[in-house]
């Protein structure tokens, strides 16, 4: 029995280490006093100072955040609706239409969206990037929400209808609270997918539109400085804060039951 426990712990620790050690290293090296950032030289806050004076990087980070927030909000609403629809009306065509963007290679999606925007004579900019992100996030939210619905007790909604609740009321007071963890998970997923997307963003961004991944990628040619670590650390902190706030506001949100 003890042996099994030990094995479980080791496996869990290895798993978490695999996930988190790289992140810890990124954060640690943001305090490294070396432009090269190849080995540890000494502690400094210089890179955070550089970051707060680097207009390009700040604008890019701001754009990324704004787009991610918008994309996750809109795609959560639409994705939840799509998930519910897919559950209620199990038609093949509907599922294919909603889920296709998940399966399509990103580069195809990026190029086709660009060609689409050009056809419409739509000016490329932050709006086109946000629309593109919403488009590819919907599928991910829908799939999570549908999975959540599949585990739901159908008799609850029937009971609500029997008691005279309108379909909207049933959804608002019975279905939605029950699938909330799925909705939140979908929203967080959409946020993450949007904030680190490169390929689709590259094609749909217009002249002068930068997001964080675009900015960082273009710096690779001339060697990445710890400033990139600094901005990544701050973003991680922000994401962590979002999750903590979400779990504080409603402790049941992140639990499965």
């Amino acid at each position, binding site marked *: 029995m003890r042996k099994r426990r030990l094995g479980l712990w080791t496996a869990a620790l290895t798993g978490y280490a695999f996930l988190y050690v790289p992140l810890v290293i990124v954060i640690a090296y943001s305090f490294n006093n*070396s*432009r*090269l950032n*190849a*080995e540890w*030289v000494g502690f400094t806050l210089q890179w955070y100072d550089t970051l707060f004076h680097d207009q390009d990087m700040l604008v890019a980070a701001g754009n990324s955040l*704004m787009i991610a*927030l*918008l994309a996750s*909000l*809109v795609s959560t*609403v639409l994705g939840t609706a799509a998930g519910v629809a897919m559950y209620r009306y199990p038609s093949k065509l509907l599922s294919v239409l909603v889920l296709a963007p998940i399966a399509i290679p990103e580069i195809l999606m990026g*190029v086709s969206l*660009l*060609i689409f925007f*050009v056809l419409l004579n739509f*000016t*490329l*900019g*932050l*709006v086109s990037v*946000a629309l593109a992100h919403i488009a590819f996030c919907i599928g991910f939210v829908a799939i999570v929400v549908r999975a959540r619905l599949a585990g739901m007790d159908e008799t609850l909604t029937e009971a609500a209808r029997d008691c005279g609740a309108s379909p909207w009321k049933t959804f608002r007071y019975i279905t939605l609270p029950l699938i909330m963890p799925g909705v939140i998970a979908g929203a967080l997923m959409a946020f993450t997918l949007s904030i680190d997307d490169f390929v689709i963003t*590259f*094609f749909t*961004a*217009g*002249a*002068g*539109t*930068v997001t964080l991944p*675009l*900015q960082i*990628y*273009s*710096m*690779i*040619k*001339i*060697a990445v400085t710890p400033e990139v670590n600094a901005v990544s650390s701050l973003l991680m902190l922000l994401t962590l804060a979002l999750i903590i706030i979400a779990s504080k506001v409603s402790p049941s949100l992140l639990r499965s039951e």
Partner: protein
Amino acid sequence: MTRILALLASLLVATTAVAKDEFHLYNWNNYIAPETIKRFEEFCKCEVVQTYYSDNEELLAKLAAGAKGYDMLVPTSNAVQALIKGGQLKPLDKSQLSNLKNINPIYLDTPFDPGNKYSVPYAMSTTIIGYNDQKIKELGLPTDTWAVIFDPKYLEKVKGRVTVLDSSNELFAAALKYLGYSANDVDPKHWDEAVALIKKAKPYWAAFNASSYIKELTVGNIWLVHGYSNDIFQANLDAKAAGRPFQILQGMPKEGAVLAVDNMVIHKDAPRPDLALKFMNFMLEGKNSSELTNLIGSGNPNMDAVKYIKPEILKNPAIFPDKAVEAKLEQLKELTGPQRRLRNKLWTEIKAGR
């Protein structure tokens, strides 16, 4: 819902608030000095908005799909040729380019853009040898010949400390140059000779590396590279800043090397071609052009820039080669379809190590 609307509204405001004159430059990252931008902004009373790409193919793909909004692009010569073929560029009004006379005539009227109808040279780099001066001196290796990259006689002294670029075009060009052919030689027999040469040298190389070799050089893990002149210049700046006991120097092979010229061109749908022409003429002024060379050690086709360039850069034979070597520098031409397929096949064969 109101929150979403508010966000949407703020997005729209952010994108439509472009009352000020803007000049959109689609450029490589760190490819113009900040002080140059500032001076141009004062001169044109406009704002310079830069977007970056890190590869010519990225730029070509995006424009081919129909992206708009860029005034000026800075592609390499063979990409200029592709853009001309694709009808993506606006012919230049030379009457607005009084400073074009500053450009060294050997960089004008090339086969990539005959008569410079669409493009003017911006800056250049070469693909050369970079080395750790301490180690290479200790080992007594030459640094002015491709032999040091390809000949096992030299390589066995630096086994595992050498990297070459992970680019079939660049590596074949270097091998062809070493064999005494043109970098643009397309004779399959000569290509076979190059493959044999590369295969013999490959066991001595640590890696095909096109991205992290700057760092490996500065840290001291790698002592000898086949790399881009700007990167090697950057590696030396980094080594100096990190207080290393060695320097990273540039070696120009006497057999010649690949030259890459980046050119200013105006996109056909440029919203402000007037500003683009102004910028072009501004960058053709010696002082403005010299600032980039002083910043990143790029080669400079501008004869008027020489007097503003730092003396230590000016006397670097890899950045400002003498006439004999300059004549042996070659710009890479695009391969035809069948040639590209053969090249890819050979490259796979080399990488797979058969």
